């Protein structure tokens, strides 16, 4: 039955909730990451505030169709724009480091995480998509509106679209895993796993854009592996924090400078998007 709802694009409430949750988690992540950067630019507050706003809007969207189609859509769009602006600022941050783009590897690794703002934007993107879906209580042919790409979202025909989003997210999150694990010099073997899995997941997502077969057969398998890997990573990251000097006694400090606790969950979310994409119907074009 869940499958049928997803196929028909009747899962606005569920996707709103998921969007609320992921926005909340990325809000926490950005709050402490920017704390680490001391909020040295006022704009660094914007993602923290906006993620709260999107979380709130998405919660409202769970209860009300009007909220979903107005508040959630607008706030998500703004937040998405903020993510793109943030991407620009992070590029500028890397450029401003000693050596700037003359030392690209060092400064990408040591500078502001270049893809993080785009990853942050993805939660808002989910919210934005949710605002065009139909609700769970709608009948199979009820409430079909719009035209063009909106209509496809409305009817749950956006497999290629979502596969492309999942591909991008996998790319960003895999790249983040690559350079941050590189920064901690692959101390334990498990740090290699996201690097091995993300290209496979990326390939499956790209494949799913072009072939329905891949979307139906391969994507679910790789996506489940990705989710499992993200879950395992979450465990390792929490363990890494507890194992730092001072452990739980200097918890705030250790969360700040320990392994980023929520990052593996964002990686797991790539898997979730893949699962979702594989269940959807394809666009007619």
């Amino acid at each position, binding site marked *: 039955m869940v499958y049928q709802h997803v196929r028909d694009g009747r899962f606005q409430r569920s996707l709103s909730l998921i969007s609320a949750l992921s926005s909340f988690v990325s809000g926490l992540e950005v709050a402490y990451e920017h704390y680490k*950067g*001391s909020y*040295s630019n006022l704009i660094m507050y914007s993602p923290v505030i906006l993620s709260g706003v999107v979380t709130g809007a998405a919660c409202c969207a769970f209860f009300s169709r009007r909220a979903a189609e107005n508040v959630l859509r607008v706030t998500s769009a703004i937040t998405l724009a903020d993510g793109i602006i943030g991407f620009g600022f992070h590029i500028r941050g890397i450029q*401003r*480091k000693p050596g700037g783009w*003359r030392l690209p590897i060092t400064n990408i690794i040591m500078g502001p995480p270049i893809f993080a703002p785009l990853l942050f934007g993805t939660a808002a993107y989910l919210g934005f998509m949710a605002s065009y879906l139909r609700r769970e209580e709608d009948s199979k042919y009820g409430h079909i509106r719009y035209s063009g790409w909106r209509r496809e979202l409305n009817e749950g025909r956006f497999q290629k679209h979502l596969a492309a989003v999942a591909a991008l997210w996998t790319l960003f999150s895999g790249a983040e895993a690559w350079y941050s694990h590189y920064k901690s010099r692959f101390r334990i073997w498990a740090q290699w796993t996201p690097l091995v899995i993300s290209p496979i997941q990326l390939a499956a997502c790209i494949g799913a854009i072009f072939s329905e077969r891949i979307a139906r057969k391969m994507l679910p398998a790789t996506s489940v592996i990705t989710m499992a890997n993200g879950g395992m990573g979450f465990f390792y990251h929490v363990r890494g924090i507890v194992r730092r*000097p001072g452990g739980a006694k*200097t918890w*705030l*400090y250790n969360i700040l400078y320990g392994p980023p606790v929520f990052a593996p969950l964002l990686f797991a979310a790539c898997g979730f998007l893949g699962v979702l994409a594989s269940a959807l119907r394809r666009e007619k074009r």
Partner: protein
Amino acid sequence: MKSPLLGRFESPHEKDKRILGPLQRISRQYRHYLDSEEVDYCVVGVGSAGGVLLQRLAKAGFSVVGLEAGPFWDPERDWVSDEKGSHKLYWNNLRITGGEDPLTFGENNSGKGVGGGSVHWAAFAPRFHPSDFRVYSEDGVAVDWPISYDDLKPYYELLEREIPVAGPAYFPWGDPHGYPYGPHPLGGVGDVLVKGCTKLGIRVCAGGPVAILSGSHGNRPHCIYRGFCIQGCKVGAKASTLITHVPEALDYGAEVRELSMAFRIGMRDKDHVNGVFYYDRDGHEHFQRAKAVIVAGYAIETPRLLLNSACPGHEHGLANSSGVVGRYLMAQAGNVVLGRFPSLIRMYKAPPAHAMTEEFYETDPGRGFARGFAIQSVAPLPIAFAKQMMTAIGAWGWGMRRVLMDYNHWATLGVLGEILPWPDNRVEIADEKDEYGIPVPKVTFNLHDNDKKMIEFGKKKVMEVMWAAGAEQVVQESRYAHLVGAARMGSDPATSVVDKFGRTHDVHNLFICDGSILPTQGSANPGLTIQSLAARTADYLISQGEKIWTSDKRDMTPPPIRRHLAVRDSFTKGVPRLFR
């Protein structure tokens, strides 16, 4: 290839430009006053306090000249990332040291050049505790301050934003507070301190408080953890008044006159000064006329200038009717405990200052001595480490080579202990003269019973922490850090040199504003307190306006704090402050 990828590199040799950091530039062409022009304020010494004073007074619209004995640094040109090559940042002129426990000079307890000691401080920036201001009433030793912690607290908060200070969101000791910039990641030494303390159940603070940027701040980039903090930060991440306050002072029309060595303060009459005599870079004598003079030369040069300015009416030195000028000099006990670990520590990584505990700061009657100490991360680079190991275990020759090959396995923690002010610890004038022909200072320093007990206890405690962290060998070296006192403030003219705003009791338009006015020193690094006192003195001068020059009546009402005079962008950056 004719030009490098992504364009030409910027030349540090362009005219009219000083490169203060990778992104910070200032022009060389600024206001210049003639000696014959009477300026409102002449500040002697452009260091921690002098830089803040210049910026505040200039921004408030006064004409002000800063005389600095050292050069106006151009970090890109003048500084090197090298221990030996950075010795020119210290005051290396002749000083005579004596007493039973003589102090070492020409090191980190002095500074020369614009920015002064703040150019090479490790940038630990803790506040003093409220109890530091009432040492006599609480512990029956030393003396009380004429001001309380609450008088200084708004200035602490302001300066922490201006320079700005990175540290934890909650700092539990003294008056608990949070910091405007987030904490730094720990280096190996910080890990040792945190590990040892948590094992012993001692509260510890990781990642600050230190005046080094953990996030960028306008045109100052954040710290890149290259470790050359006390060699002069070429990144511009570590705060020094050279890059925080002096550029803005110049923008508002202050003049910084480099390589100008003040040697005497000129008198208009017995109760008023009218300017400063100084030698320029070529040794020619000049006289800068000023309506008021502020001496900010730190604990040795300030009393030296006052004592050398003796004249009819002030036979024992200027403003010295009490005989206190030069007395009550204080250094902090800075014993260094070194521990060897089986794993790599790599002390050279990260700023030396990044973790501390003030758990033993206050008096504990059970310990048998008054006042206390702090434990801080130290992390010397190899030459300093070699010196410490030479004193600690007598390493020499082949033994020294072996010790140095082992450098990456060693961690150092430091005691920062409060030595009380004693009248026999003093600065006097010797018969010898320096290259300008100015009589040099002679410093006498003795430890007293309370100080020795404190050092002994502190040393043992740090060793315990070191063992608890897992060290396999622990040694220690005795040394001292920070110099303050020697022209202390107080409300009684018979026992102090200046009043609570830094004005000398004897001369109406002569002020002292630097570390030398501190009556006691706490177990906190004095840098932030010196700058906060300077901002407070500046606020006082600005509220008094022309009365400073025209009236002999002293208005002792505390000035309102002038937040709008803070350096640009102080309030648009930083984390939300949950604990004030």
